């Protein structure tokens, strides 16, 4: 009998197309997602070398990083010239190489990591890559999914494989139940708070435990999305009935006899009893609180009930980094996080731009108003999320509260399009990175869950969502 395997071991073993004596493998890629920012040089590389796309049927492109989210974006002048060049290049490359494509004008367009699962491209047991670090999102389906650079994008386009060495196995277990007001976002941020942004470096994380099993598919995507923020190559969650139910009937999911065959295979995708993990982290679900970042690294995270820390509480190179963060963020040690006033609220991104996220924010906002003078925007993760939110009446709740109701894209998560913070502006954001300048030059980002973002919009300061539930 073979030795027990982790979920990662199983998916890895099923995709090794070639293994050299030194352990360097060619890993076969089942789905390659492509967007406009990290692909033009890769397609150009193919052209220069006279190469084609090896498996156009497994390659899916959608513009998301650059696209405006304002309602008038059908007017091409809403895009800057350089953005338009990138989006036009993707249009042309998709056509030239015959890959699947969702243009800006298509209702199914959206953030690549939301479109993939929504359309049934992402399925359990697959290998999924994209020239974007948040490809980790797709791990929620029990798919091995990670970001790659542009040279690797070109490599996958040309060969449908990646040159890889296997990572180590890490288990992150969240035991028990979450308390009210605590979400998948708080889980994933708390894990990074515990392990640090390099805690997962060299590992693929499998998230497990009762609190993970209790999450919806949307919540699981939020957890896996930020695996990269913890340094891991990928995050994984074993598929279960919720996964199968989510996938069933999606446009590119298997049907009929193939569905039955797929289901039988998917049910083998779990970590065997006794399989070896190289690192284990366990958090109690009941100990996780609604969380918020105070600094400029995702590991700078604390419960909303805490105060801004002092550099003296840290060690090594982190002392200088914390001082730099506090200067950048304009914060004084000892200030209660719940007293920090904000100017802007951003709800969206591949971390929290799905329907469940919009429902959670709308539940807090119903019948309430955004505080005077604040800017608040909702950017649904895809055109279909937007349509569903309109059908459920969520859009009306946002608009009546004073939120802008936008079209789909990456938007203010990385501020490559016009959705940016002004210098010194402070934002409660449901996105994934609080790096310096991430949401705009000298902009200040506090990462929170959708409910916390909504609560902040009402009060004008970082707020414990449990006080307004």
């Amino acid at each position: 009998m073979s030795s027990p395997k982790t979920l990662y071991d199983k998916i890895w073993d099923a995709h090794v197309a070639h293994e050299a004596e030194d352990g360097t493998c060619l890993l076969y890629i089942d789905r390659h997602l492509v967007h406009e920012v990290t692909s033009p040089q890769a397609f150009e590389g193919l052209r220069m070398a006279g190469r084609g796309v090896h498996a156009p049927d497994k390659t899916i492109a959608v513009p998301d990083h650059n696209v405006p989210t304002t309602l008038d974006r059908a007017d091409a002048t809403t895009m800057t010239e350089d953005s338009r060049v990138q989006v036009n290049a993707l249009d042309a490359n998709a056509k030239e190489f015959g890959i699947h494509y969702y243009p800006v004008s298509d209702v199914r367009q959206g953030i690549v990591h939301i479109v993939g699962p929504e359309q049934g491209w992402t399925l359990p047991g697959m290998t999924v890559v994209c020239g974007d670090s948040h490809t980790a999102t797709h791990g929620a389906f029990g798919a091995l999914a990670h970001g790659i650079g542009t040279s690797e994008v070109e490599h996958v386009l040309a060969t449908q494989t990646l040159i890889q060495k296997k990572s180590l196995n890490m288990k992150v277990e969240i035991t028990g139940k979450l308390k009210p007001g605590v979400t998948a976002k708080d889980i994933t941020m708390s894990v990074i708070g515990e392990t640090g942004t390099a805690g997962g470096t060299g590992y693929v994380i499998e998230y497990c435990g009762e609190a993970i099993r209790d999450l919806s598919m949307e919540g699981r995507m939020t957890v896996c999305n930020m695996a990269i923020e913890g340094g891991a190559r990928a995050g994984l969650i074993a598929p279960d009935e919720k996964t199968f139910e989510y996938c069933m009937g999606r446009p590119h999911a298997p049907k009929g006899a193939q569905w039955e065959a797929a289901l039988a295979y998917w049910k083998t995708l779990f970590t065997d009893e006794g399989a070896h993990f190289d690192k284990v982290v366990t958090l109690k679900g009941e100990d996780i609180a609604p969380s918020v970042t105070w600094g400029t690294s995702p590991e700078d995270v604390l419960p909303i009930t805490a105060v801004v820390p002092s550099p003296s509480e840290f060690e090594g190179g982190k002392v200088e980094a914390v001082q730099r963060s506090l200067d950048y963020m304009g914060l004084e040690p000892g200030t209660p996080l719940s007293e920090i006033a904000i100017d802007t609220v951003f709800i969206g991104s591949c971390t929290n731009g799905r329907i469940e996220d919009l429902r959670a924010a709308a539940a807090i906002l119903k019948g309430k108003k955004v505080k005077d003078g604040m800017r608040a925007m909702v950017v649904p993760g895809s055109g279909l999320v937007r349509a569903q939110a309109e059908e459920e009446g969520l859009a009306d709740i946002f608009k009546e509260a004073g939120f802008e109701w936008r079209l789909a894209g990456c938007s203010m998560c990385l501020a490559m399009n016009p959705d940016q913070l002004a210098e010194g502006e402070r934002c409660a954001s449901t996105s994934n990175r609080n790096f310096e300048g991430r949401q705009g030059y000298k902009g200040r980002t506090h990462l929170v869950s959708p409910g916390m973002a909504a609560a902040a919009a009402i009060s004008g300061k970082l707020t414990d969502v449990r006080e307004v539930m």
Partner: protein
Amino acid sequence: MDKFDTLTGIAAPMPLVNIDTDMIIPKQFLKTIKRSGLGANLFDEMRFDRQGNEIPDFVLNKPQYREAEILVAGENFGCGSSREHAPWAIKDFGIRAVIAPSYADIFYNNCFKNGIIPIVLPQDQVDALMKDAEKGANARMTIDLEAQTVTSSDGDVFSFEVDSFKKHCLMNGLDDIGLTMEKSASIKSFEEAASQARPWV
């Protein structure tokens, strides 16, 4: 790809931990469809003020480090996004090697695709090289990839580990895609077997 074998050059000290890809090359410079020209904006928001004037305190603006070819940095260098624009900018500026206790995974891999060697050394050795780098332009370090060593300006030698395949590709400037295509028979037979085992993929 450019080869890397040995390099003797000025090392710039950047002791900050978690230097992320947004710092290395802010997103407004990702709107290019080329790989070249990004060096002008390397560390843009740390290097220039809003008017485009140099910030004199920033290490690469100091006279002794303007020609730096090596960076010595804090842990988790290159964390964040997958943007290969980060190594493209580093290379275009003229930096061919980074020395740090650890790197983010995607950035680390991206370096090797661009003729840059990301060297991992223990924190105490990075600290020693950081001190060496702080001496300025007269303190030139030498990196020898074949021997897998970094030699400080004082002659102290530090050995580093590097994956043998990555080293081979970097030393010979090999094109990964060409190498993989030599294994196309393996890829084809994998595809045939996989289409039987998992026809829905």
